[in-house]
């Protein structure tokens, strides 16, 4: 049984979608190139982390989300922020620690969010922490009746943290509508993936949680988008969390200061020939979706935009020192009036009506449904004892392998009228 599912055949994208993907990849790269120049001019206050060569992943995955959906980027997902609607000036001002930045200079890089409009949750530098957070967002969304999907990213390096496991396991046990993108760029700072994880495919990690996974060429934006789109639809339909491993390569060092001399020349040469933007330009030209005139128009649009945005950032002031001790605590409703967006009738919940049974079940959950078949059968008391005994013969496979361990949610009787 293949561990990861074959990505869906690329559906034909509309002309607009095809060009959107191109625009955002180019914008992603040009924003980062602009920041590299600013870094060399000593205008970036802290570190600068590049996603050169990984733009197809940030752009292709986030483009599969709807406006109501939530994302939490990692350090190399500026492309996802741009797709979600963040103006480039926010990224410039963040890196330059300006008072006009979304965090007013309190934090840098992609560390900012927008709870009210864009539905973005700020990352932190400790890897994997966003996985349970986005699980909680998905759980709250389900409870509020919102049909949302949450998406976050993790690297090959971050997939070894404890909270990656805790978060993905909780997401699986809750059937949370989480799509987790595992960007395997082959390097965690200076440590190659082969020295971190004894797995050929990091998507195999999904097996441990009984969830579905995909492996996709991370430098093929159409494949990335198509796969992400299918995963988002499945998560929204209630299938539970889905892991996508996107295979790619980190072409710059861990951060700007790191020349990455530990990377073998052959490896770098191989991946440099597979630049996601160059590959996609070829595709668009073949499909007659892009010609030199169209390309020039997009380039001009991007440089005009970035010129304006960079100037705004450069002309912005640093935060006044007296703001340093402000904002540690929320001071109450005048500071934040917290009201959830109910999309289910609230009278379902007031007065509370008991509903002890979960409205979903995970088929094969805890029964080794996805295992090799040699694991010891356990009688959980919720399946007939006879079938448990039957599968106790270690010579025989214990359970028939299912195409997907997660079946559609089985609605149970509920005292409420509405369901999901």
């Amino acid at each position: 049984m293949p561990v990861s599912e074959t990505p869906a055949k690329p559906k034909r994208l509309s002309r607009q979608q095809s060009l959107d993907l191109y625009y955002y990849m180019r914008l992603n790269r040009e924003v980062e190139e602009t920041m590299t120049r600013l870094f060399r001019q000593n205008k970036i206050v802290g570190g600068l982390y590049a996603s050169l060569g990984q733009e197809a992943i940030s752009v292709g995955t986030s483009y599969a989300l709807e406006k109501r959906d939530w994302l939490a980027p990692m350090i190399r997902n500026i492309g996802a922020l741009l797709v979600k609607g963040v103006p480039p000036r926010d990224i410039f001002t963040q890196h330059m620690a300006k008072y006009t930045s979304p965090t007013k200079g309190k934090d840098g890089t992609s560390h900012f969010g927008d709870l009210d409009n864009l539905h973005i949750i700020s990352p932190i530098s400790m890897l994997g922490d966003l996985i349970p957070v986005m699980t909680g967002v998905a759980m709250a969304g389900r409870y509020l009746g919102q049909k949302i999907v949450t998406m976050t990213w993790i690297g090959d390096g971050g997939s070894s943290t404890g909270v990656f496991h805790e978060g993905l396991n909780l997401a699986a046990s809750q059937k949370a509508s989480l799509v987790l993108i595992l960007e395997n760029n082959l390097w965690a700072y200076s440590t190659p993936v082969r020295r971190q994880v004894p797995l050929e495919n990091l998507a195999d990690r999904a097996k441990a949680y009984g969830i579905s996974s995909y492996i996709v060429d991370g430098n093929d934006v159409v494949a990335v988008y198509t796969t992400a789109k299918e995963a988002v639809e499945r998560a929204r339909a209630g299938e539970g969390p889905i892991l996508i491993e996107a295979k790619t390569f980190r072409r710059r060092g861990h951060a700007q200061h790191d020349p990455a001399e530990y990377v073998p020349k052959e490896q770098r040469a191989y991946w440099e020939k597979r630049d996601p933007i160059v590959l996609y330009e070829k595709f668009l030209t073949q499909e007659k979706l892009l010609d030199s005139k169209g390309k020039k128009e997009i380039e001009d649009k991007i440089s005009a935009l970035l010129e304006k945005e960079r100037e705004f950032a450069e002309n912005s002031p640093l935060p006044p020192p007296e703001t340093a001790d402000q904002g540690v605590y929320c001071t109450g409703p005048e500071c934040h009036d917290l009201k959830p967006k109910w999309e289910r009738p609230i009278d379902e919940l007031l007065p509370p009506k008991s509903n002890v049974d979960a409205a979903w079940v995970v088929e094969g959950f805890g029964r080794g449904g996805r295992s090799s078949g040699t694991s010891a059968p356990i009688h959980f008391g919720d399946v007939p004892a006879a079938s448990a005994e039957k599968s106790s013969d270690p010579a025989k496979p214990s359970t028939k392998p299912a195409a997907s361990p997660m079946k559609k949610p089985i609605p149970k009787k509920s005292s409420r009228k509405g369901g999901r």
Partner: protein
Amino acid sequence: MAPITFLEAIRQAMFEEMAADPTVVLIGEDVGVYGGAFKTSEGLLEKFGWERVIDTPISESAIIGAACGMSYLGLRPIAEMQFIDFIACCFNQLTNFVAKGHYLWNAPAPIVVRGPSGGGVHGGPFHSLNPEMYFLHTPGFKIVYPSTPYDAKGLLKASIRDNNPVLFFEHKFLYRRIKEEIPAGDYTVPLGKAIVRREGKHLTILSYAAMMHTSLEAADALAKEGIEAEVIDLRTLMPLDEETILTSVKKTNKCLVVHEDTKTGGIAGEISAILFEKAFHHLDGPVVRVASLDTPVPYAPTLEEAFLPNAKKVFTAAKELARF
């Protein structure tokens, strides 16, 4: 109304807040079907259902992460640590993610993290912790440590309604040992307000949680010797009610701080610094600390007794201080 236990006060606070506000949910290990290891959430699953009373895997970081994520959509999750000692397992998620959110990116996280804490019940080194100072040193948390059923209920309700992450510590020694008659109906106790439990003029004893009762016991013994101690229950360590502390010390001119947390780095040191900064000219003697030994919490009853402060230790220290 019949008197209720400290534990029942916690349960009532959660029950009433969940009944009144559908944004309040409970998440933790064994909080649902089992009703919590100490039965603080007994009956909540039956009343509110699986969507609002969420049993989780043994994953403290995931519990805190998920609670935080839920709060971003407008819910008010209560996250239970089965024993507060396990809060160390999610230290990163709490101190780096939850606590910093409002300052860094204007994201309030209205979650309450609560659980049984404290020693004196022979729980040993991993089931007896007083973790308040780990978190007092992290800007962004409010820290509550009640001593009576009335306060436990009123402070927990106020904590649930607060827009900030609140760490709510429940001294397990008090769970079933203390009963109190409390008013029927809804009430809250505001965070950041200490209370004078016993008035006196010779010296001030500041304390909280189980040690508040120890301090009152010592005050009784002191009174028999003609020393009138004023006993103040801090109730919350963040915000700390400096006004009540300073008013009392300016009256008595002497201060003893009693806490069950270990001595070095405990809140007594911080309070001592505040008194030196703000009431130096009013002090007639040193600020004295009575606290646990600087060791892990030992298991054997003889060792734990030596480790913990008790009324006799408080009495002796207070008597010494009163001589100044």
